[in-house]
């Protein structure tokens, strides 16, 4: 436990702040990488997920691809891309986007599928076009689950962005890898503790947002659980 205290002291030591390898610079890099990855992954996965959720087509393909990506070791992917595009930020960025897409995609289409079919039928019956149904019924009602998907993705990305510095991509992995190389356990611990704090902060922020985005008047959609089952796959009793 002594080492643990040393790790915290290392993280608080003023001499480790400021400059290119200052803690605050590395935290900023880490957060910027994570945000950038989430933004790019969202741009790709949300429209795709909405299309799958709205039409009900391609769902099994999406599940299959997501499963395959789960089996894909991120470290290996990151390193092989680094070997191709050279060391730096690009390789970890691509690898992290690949990692983040399945969660966001699942959140997007699960959100649409969880919408009560009767609400969609009603919207169609009052004369809404398909685009209006997507934009004004399905998207708002599915938002809590989409945020849930972003929450999982954000956690994964913050955790895995540690590996970015292994190929020279920056971020908080710097302290961990430098500590490993020089056998500086307090430094490794400091880096680890800061990453854990960021991960938990991300969880906290997203859980609040998830609660805020539930449309007024809808309490049934309140996310008790991120993995809410869709109404489509539920079978009738008997």
């Amino acid at each position: 436990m002594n080492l643990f205290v040393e790790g915290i002291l290392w993280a608080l030591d003023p001499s480790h702040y400021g400059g290119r390898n200052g803690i605050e610079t590395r935290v900023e890099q880490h957060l910027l990488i994570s945000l950038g990855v989430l933004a790019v992954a969202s741009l790709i996965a949300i429209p795709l997920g909405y299309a799958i959720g709205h039409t009900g087509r391609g769902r099994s393909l999406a599940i299959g691809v997501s499963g395959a990506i789960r089996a894909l070791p991120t470290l290996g992917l990151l390193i092989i891309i680094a070997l191709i595009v050279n060391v730096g930020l690009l390789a970890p960025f691509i690898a992290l986007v690949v990692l983040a897409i399945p969660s966001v995609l699942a959140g997007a289409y699960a959100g649409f599928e969880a919408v009560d079919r009767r609400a969609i039928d009603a919207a169609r019956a009052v004369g809404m076009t398909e685009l209006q149904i997507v934009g004004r019924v399905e998207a708002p009602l599915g938002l809590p689950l989409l945020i849930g998907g972003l929450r999982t993705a954000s956690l994964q990305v913050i955790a895995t962005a540690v590996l970015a510095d292994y190929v020279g991509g920056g971020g908080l992995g710097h302290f961990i890898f430098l500590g490993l190389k020089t056998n500086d356990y307090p430094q490794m611990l400091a880096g680890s503790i800061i990453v854990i704090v960021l991960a938990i902060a991300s969880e906290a922020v997203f859980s609040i947002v998830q609660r805020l985005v539930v449309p007024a008047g809808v309490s049934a959609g309140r996310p008790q659980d991120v993995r809410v089952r869709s109404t489509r796959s539920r079978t009738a009793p008997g």
Partner: protein
Amino acid sequence: MNWLVNNGDLIGQLVVAHLLIAIPPIILSLVISVPIGWLANRYAWSRGTLLTGFGLLYAIPSLPLFIILPLIIGTGLRDSINLVVALTLYGLALMVRTTADGLASVDPDVRQSASGVGFSGRSQFFRVELPLAGPVLLAGIRVVAVSTISLTTVGAVIGISSLGSLFTDGFQRGIGAEILTGIVLTIILALGVDGLLVLLGRILMPWVAVNSGRVSRRERRRARLAVVA
């Protein structure tokens, strides 16, 4: 390709090392999740507490956990037990909830019938509730198996041998074939163990295959009706 031919021995050793690290957490997280899942459903206070507690484990990034864990359990940083414990914790993060949900999903009528025909508490749990929760447990452990086998590779950056060693070594020496071999073998192992679990599920729960066939037919019909409507 040359690299692959010349390093068959090394690859074999790493596959074995990889499995020795990855398999125990898969089994342990299944076995340990059963009593915890049971406890979660047993009392009013326990469900929220246990599910939130184990769920939080998932929020801890892997590499930092590998580094902090030795301080708590007193192993060496490069000890493979360190990795096994960390991966078991991740497995539990998912399995405790899955098992609790699976056990809770057993039809109350079935429970009543079971105690009606004379099952005692313990045999009712092991011979009625646990088997009926089986398909849910299987689905959970398949996810755990695939992600555990993939996560095991991260141990290589702190110096624990596994297929991940092919990534770190290949990166340092600039051998793309070595890294690619590691990626492909990790995926093959993950899919292989996943397939094995499915097979094991078929053998242990022969009734599931029949059931799922019926459900999917009904679902297809519902889907067709939905299109027509």
